């Protein structure tokens, strides 16, 4: 049995004393996140600043068979950064360099600790923006978001897979690169690769197999990413935002299919009155008002245009949208009840992380949990009904359910996210929410909701039903992580 102090000393030698923390308060903070996952403490929190440090930490972990749990965000929502078996939390959130912006090939190379706020601010100087999810937390890492496959606001097919190349530390501690970053003879610093090789870091595929696909959705179990370049988009010259209000979710289905089929507009999502209220309300009092006056469901659609005849581009999109509206007897509007400036307000915030003190998903009661999965849009009403039934079973008001539907790759799939709110101080309520969460998740999975990001308790529910998929993934895991150090206990590992 190795002396723990010896291990700690070795780690301090790698990252410096101040970056190797076992203070109770620190361990406690890192033992939980915003999810309903149980609290679990690590043994140490290691703050790393470079790929070289990450390699050494992981090698050490292999030497002593210690779990390593990578975390790049200052906030977590899904439990993937909570250790299952103790070990070392490898905190990369301090790696905040924006290494390079390639405006010609439309990508940005960043370190894992860069947040959306930091990135958007930098990209704005170059006339670009990142494709972000809906109002991410200000501490949310861009790299983590991409690896977690969190849906972006843009349903454009080419922006749904934003990852290009990556610098990786494999679970063995070995250095690795994906895509055309792996070009032989490339210099050690990824940012200088385009200058010192004939590689512009644009090819995401390979080497050999499609690494980047295996590394997404793995919850850090297949390796740690220390640099990534992702696609970015031009900031439009002109934008309009229209709302289509619906009384029932069923009524929104066909119009939304048609919008996506005809590729009208860019950013697009559906929110119910509850979620929209949480976003638009200036203060807590307004939340309740808006929950009552806003339409039950609203499709928000951004029409945008770049440098070429922007008025005309907006014009044809608007014409197509209004023609659709006529067909479905809906008038697209730029205002919402009680929020006449809704268009401007939303346009102002959708490219940025949430700036308020309380994260919008928690504004209602102080805390929240989300059930999310992919579905064809035509089944969304079915799943929402099921959720409402489950809510009723546990005396959770249906009106307190948040519904957010995000198209991915136009018509192909829709992310349906159902928010539950609860008072974090009320343990009894939290317990009820946990039971509702579990019961509803189980029912949704059994009915055909595709939980493509099987966090926490979903992992067992999902993988017990997927036949040979879990054994295959376990085999891959076994190849990459023979000592089982990388975030053990996650997924089905």
């Amino acid at each position, binding site marked *: 049995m190795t002396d723990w102090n010896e291990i700690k000393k070795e780690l301090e030698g790698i990252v410096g004393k101040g970056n190797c923390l076992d203070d109770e308060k620190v361990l406690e903070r890192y033992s939980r996140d915003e999810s309903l996952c149980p609290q679990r403490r690590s043994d140490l929190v290691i703050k790393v600043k470079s790929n070289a440090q990450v390699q050494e930490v992981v090698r050490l972990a292999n030497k002593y068979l210690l779990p390593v749990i990578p975390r790049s965000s200052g906030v977590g929502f899904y439990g993937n950064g909570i250790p299952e078996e103790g070990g070392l939390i490898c905190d990369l959130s301090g790696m905040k360099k924006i290494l390079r912006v390639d405006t010609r090939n439309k990508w940005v190379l960043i370190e894992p600790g860069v947040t959306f706020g930091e990135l958007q601010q930098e990209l704005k100087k170059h006339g670009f923006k990142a494709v972000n999810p809906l109002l991410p937390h200000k501490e949310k890492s861009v790299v983590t978001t991409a690896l977690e496959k969190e849906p972006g606001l843009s349903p454009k097919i080419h922006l749904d897979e934003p990852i290009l190349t990556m610098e990786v530390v494999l679970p063995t501690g070995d250095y690795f690169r994906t895509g055309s970053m792996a070009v032989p003879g490339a210099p050690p610093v990824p940012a200088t690769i385009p200058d010192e090789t004939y590689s512009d870091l644009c090819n995401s595929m390979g080497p050999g197999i499609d690494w980047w696909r295996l590394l997404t959705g793995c919850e850090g179990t297949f390796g740690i990413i220390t640099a990534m370049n992702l696609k970015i988009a031009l900031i439009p010259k002109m934008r309009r935002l229209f709302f289509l209000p619906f009384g029932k979710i069923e009524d929104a289905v066909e119009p939304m299919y048609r919008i996506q089929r005809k590729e009208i507009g860019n950013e697009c999502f559906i929110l119910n009155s509850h979620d929209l209220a949480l976003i638009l309300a200036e203060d807590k009092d307004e939340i309740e008002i808006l929950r009552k006056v806003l339409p039950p469901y609203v499709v928000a659609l951004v029409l945008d245009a770049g440098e070429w005849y922007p008025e005309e581009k907006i014009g044809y999109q608007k014409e197509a949208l209004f023609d659709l509206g006529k067909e479905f007897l809906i008038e697209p509007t730029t205002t919402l009840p009680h929020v006449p400036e809704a268009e401007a307000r939303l346009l102002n915030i959708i490219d940025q992380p949430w700036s308020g003190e309380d994260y919008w998903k928690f504004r209602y009661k102080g805390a929240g949990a989300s059930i999310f999965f*992919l579905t064809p849009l035509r089944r969304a009403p079915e799943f929402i009904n099921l959720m409402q039934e489950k809510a009723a079973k546990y005396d959770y008001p249906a009106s307190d359910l948040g519904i957010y539907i995000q198209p991915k790759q136009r018509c192909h799939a829709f992310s349906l996210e159902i928010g539950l709110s609860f008072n974090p101080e009320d343990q009894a309520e939290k317990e009820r929410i946990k039971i509702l969460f579990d019961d509803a998740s189980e029912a949704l999975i059994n009915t055909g909701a595709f939980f493509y990001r099987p966090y926490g308790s979903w992992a067992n529910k999902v993988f017990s039903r997927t036949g040979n998929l879990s054994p295959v993934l376990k085999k891959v895991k076994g190849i990459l992580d023979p000592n089982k150090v990388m975030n053990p206990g996650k997924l089905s590992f």
Partner: protein
Amino acid sequence: MAFTKLAFKALEDVLGKGNVTDDPVICQSYSRVNWLPPGYLQRVRLGTDMRPACVVLPGSTEEVQAVIRIANRFKFPFIPRGSGYTFQAFPAGKGYVVIDPKRMNRIIEVNEKDMYAVIEPYVTFAELQTEAMKKGMTCPSPLAGAQVSVLANYSWHGAYGNSWISGIGAQNLLAFEWVLPTGDLVKSGSISSPHAGWFWNDGPGPDLRGLLRGGMFGHAGGLGMVTKISCRLTPWPGPRVLPTRGISIDKISEFPKDQFRWYMIKFPFKYPEEEEKELIQSIELFYELGKAEIAVFATHLAKQFLYTYSSKTKQDLFDNMKNNVFPHGYCVVGLQATTSVRQLNYEERVVKDIVAKVGGIFVKEDEPAYQVWIVRTANEWLRFAHGIRLARPSDSFSIGASNVDSCDGIVREILRSNKTARDALSSEKELGKDFVQPLSVHGGWISPQEYGHWCLMTTDIFSEQSVKQAQEAIELMGSQLKGQLEDKSAAVVIHLLGPSYDILGPMMNNVHLIVKKIKNTFDPNNLSNPPYATRPDVLSEEEVKKMMGAH
């Protein structure tokens, strides 16, 4: 490893008489592929050892599983394939069993709402697109020709006329059923979850397409056989049936101008002296189109593609060359009224402005190049009916060089690789004697992907089907790789398949060792199309050097 009578009997019991054969006459028709020099030389070297010991025709996923389990029991190698177009789908030695999916040709579903189709391995692009078009949708069409298997193409490579919006094969692949080299079945994507259906590709957890696909290519059947997929369809506002006029080689296809517009663009440079400028300005065109996010087709075609694809006959091709119908390469841009006619008109306005901005000139409708290309051939880009016309000049051809990187990056690769080829090929010198300008070794096919976020390119070389010229072509491939390594070109990353894993893997963080472990784990008996994706053993440095010499 030998294929035995007992193995044959076991296969026959599972598949039924008439769906299994070891008759050498029948097997002979699975023994030859000429159009890539390595395949051609492999046949010369192996002779009838390249004839499979047996060919099987399974009719379902369950039958494929049974075949592969029998393979593991009797230890014979098997080759999963689609239409069997590339040489990796042929035996690398004696005793292989070819799995011909001809009986697995169902289009199971064409989902109009969620825009996907579910298909089996022997469904071709033409069939899928035909059925999709009836419902206002389409799918890409590869330059190999719309007669190839969709499933195999998406699992293997896949570069398309409309890659400008569609990307490559892996990006069009959704959920899939995969029979592993042990015979176990794994489902990936939404189909893995009960009652979720076929609509999505990714998860749960890691995206298993990562194992299926690679740097440019898949595992060439080296990790089992995919037996069913769902695949993406995109909007098609055009006629529900592809319009055609005329007979045979005079057939043309024109789309309604209120839904589609084609443009052919050239640049005012001296050719071939200023070819580099032409390529650079072509790329500028793509960068600008990409920023504007318009069009559904955008590509640059070197003369080799224009002459071959547009040729009615071989003589026609050579006559056109003599008459210099295509004096240089051209860019082709296609617009589609996905949203509305007004959108189409808007995009046309923008295309015109962008072309002016980059110094391009629209080819007029009465110019021979327009008549030959746009009128006769443009709709190849929707449905490639004449893929193998690339072989027309010499009745065989080879890939000269490929790259996948930025648009700028592939221009560099075109110029570098063509210069290498010009000096190397005796066939090129020969062809250069008789004609105004040589056919190959100038320009390439530039296929920008996803609105120019990245780009793919190939050049082709036209060599006659002979041992001498095939060896020359392979030597050239080696020179190209050498040049790419010296340049530290992104092109090296895409080469990993078969023997090149051992040569190049050590240069890329020893990726070959990981992939060999994957191969050994999932194919413990090394039966799934050896030596793909890679041979299971780790070679010493001396062995690698020897192999490099042999290749």
